[in-house]
């Protein structure tokens, strides 16, 4: 198993009130699998990703990479956040190079960063500052940066959540293309069902608080995938199934279910 999430529990306890965010979430990802975690907002899917990244500590359970439990964050797991995390004081080029300092010399660093900017089609913006880029471009750089040092697993926390609908779709296509060409184990988090079906080999639905895996379905849609897929009958079938499952959770939390 590339990535194992084994009985993860996470309780946020601020002294007055304990909130159970994860309650025994368990699943495995095999090598080069693209899996997406969906659920209503606040279901703990982002918490799960933070724990997997080593940025939050689990209350109980384990995260294993290649069968070994993780000890905090590490270069084997790259991360892309929803918020813009490019460093505003560095150029686009230097932002990517920042992640490469640990293992590459100066010249090599420059070359690898350039190559990865080209991968997301932004090599001509190498010397721009993040503030000069649109939101979609910033996320493309963030993806290039996360890929540049070749982590074994890419963790993506609603990376397109802050983008407008048009840009988001273009980003989904870009990510699919990249993934189809380069293959990598990806754990993606979103609340957008279309996005989940379009990108993934497998979609996992989380129950709402306490967070557990409720549904785990493979997406057997052909690759390479193009945007026409969004309106194909098979796509819509998957979508309907997932929508029903997520909706059940929303109803429960919103207090609609009798």
């Amino acid at each position, binding site marked *: 198993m590339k990535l194992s999430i084994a009985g993860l529990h996470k309780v946020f306890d601020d002294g007055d009130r304990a909130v159970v965010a994860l309650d025994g979430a368990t699943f495995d990802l095999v090598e080069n699998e693209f899996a997406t975690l969906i659920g209503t907002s606040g279901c703990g899917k982002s918490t799960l990703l933070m724990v997997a*990244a*080593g*940025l939050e500590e689990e209350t109980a359970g384990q995260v294993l990479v290649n069968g070994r439990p993780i000890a*905090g*964050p*590490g*270069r084997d*797991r*790259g*991360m892309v*956040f929803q*918020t*813009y*995390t490019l*460093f*505003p*004081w560095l150029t686009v080029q230097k932002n990517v190079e*920042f*992640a490469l300092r*640990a293992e590459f010399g100066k010249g090599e660093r420059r070359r690898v960063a350039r190559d990865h900017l080209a991968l997301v089609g932004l090599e001509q913006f190498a010397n721009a*500052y*993040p*503030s*000069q880029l649109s939101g979609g471009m910033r996320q493309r750089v963030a993806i290039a940066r996360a890929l540049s*040092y070749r982590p074994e697993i890419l963790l993506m926390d609603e990376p397109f959540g802050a983008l407008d609908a048009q840009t988001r779709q273009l980003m989904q296509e870009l990510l699919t293309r990249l993934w189809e060409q380069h293959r990598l184990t990806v754990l993606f988090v979103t609340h957008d069902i279309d996005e989940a079906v379009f990108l993934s080999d497998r979609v996992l639905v989380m129950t709402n608080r306490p967070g557990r895996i409720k549904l785990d379905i493979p997406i057997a849609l052909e690759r390479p995938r193009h945007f026409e897929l969004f309106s194909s009958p098979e796509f819509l079938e998957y979508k309907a199934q997932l929508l029903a499952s997520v909706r059940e959770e929303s109803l429960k939390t919103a207090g609609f279910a009798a």
Partner: protein
Amino acid sequence: MPELPETVSTNPAAGAVPAPAARPVARARRRRRVRLYGPLDPRIYFSVAVAAFVAMLLAWWLASSLNVTSDLFLPSPGRVWHRAIELARDGTLENATWASFRRISIGFLISTAFGLPIGILIGTYRIAEAAIEPPVDFIRYMPAVAFVPLSIVWLGVGESQKYMLIFIGTFFQQVLMVMDNVKRVPREYVDIGYTFGLRDVGVLLRIVLPASAPAIWDTLRITLGWAWTWLVVAELVAAPNGLGHMILTAQRYFETDTIFVGILTIGLLGLAMDQSMKLIGARLFRWAETRQG
């Protein structure tokens, strides 16, 4: 639209109640220039600022020439100007300014040398915050002026006593402000740094510091302004030279014009330092001007 004038003319009440006329007035009012957070032409801004200074000078000049009070209490702008030139010619002003400048530079540097690292430390490590923040917060509320007698008892009236007073007045504010600057660094910058494999020191030096540098620079600029106050207080109490000393001696001989020269010089020096730090900051942290949301 063409019906409007007709309605007006056929309506007998139109003369008494100017209802139609109220419309353009309302529209004009909506187009007025001054409103909350409204924009302003930079040229108008500049003119108004200059006018304010001119008005201040004018009021001063008027008050002194109308003999509202004796010339002894309120010297005219002209007299102060002459006195300033005299003091500049015989080197008094230069010596006093230089002595004060030296003191504030050293005092402020000592304060910053401690305030900066400690502020960064307590802004990033909760345990350091727990140990240092509460006492600093407590001492901050003790007026620095109240430490003057103690500082003289401890250190006499030499230079180190001046540094101590500047330190007490500046350091405790600096620490808390730098702590706050550092705390405002987005958590995601720090998190992403850890996923790149950086350790605490790396994240601190290569992410936290550059991310908070523009805000810290602002803190230094603001606290430098406050440091001037403590410098003058120190010099007023006991000093062989400096602008505060010049003011105090002038008071003994009723040289109000010299007092004015001293106060204005301090104001101008403060302004010059503040503006140059602003300029340097804008050059150093060009990226921060268009901060991303």
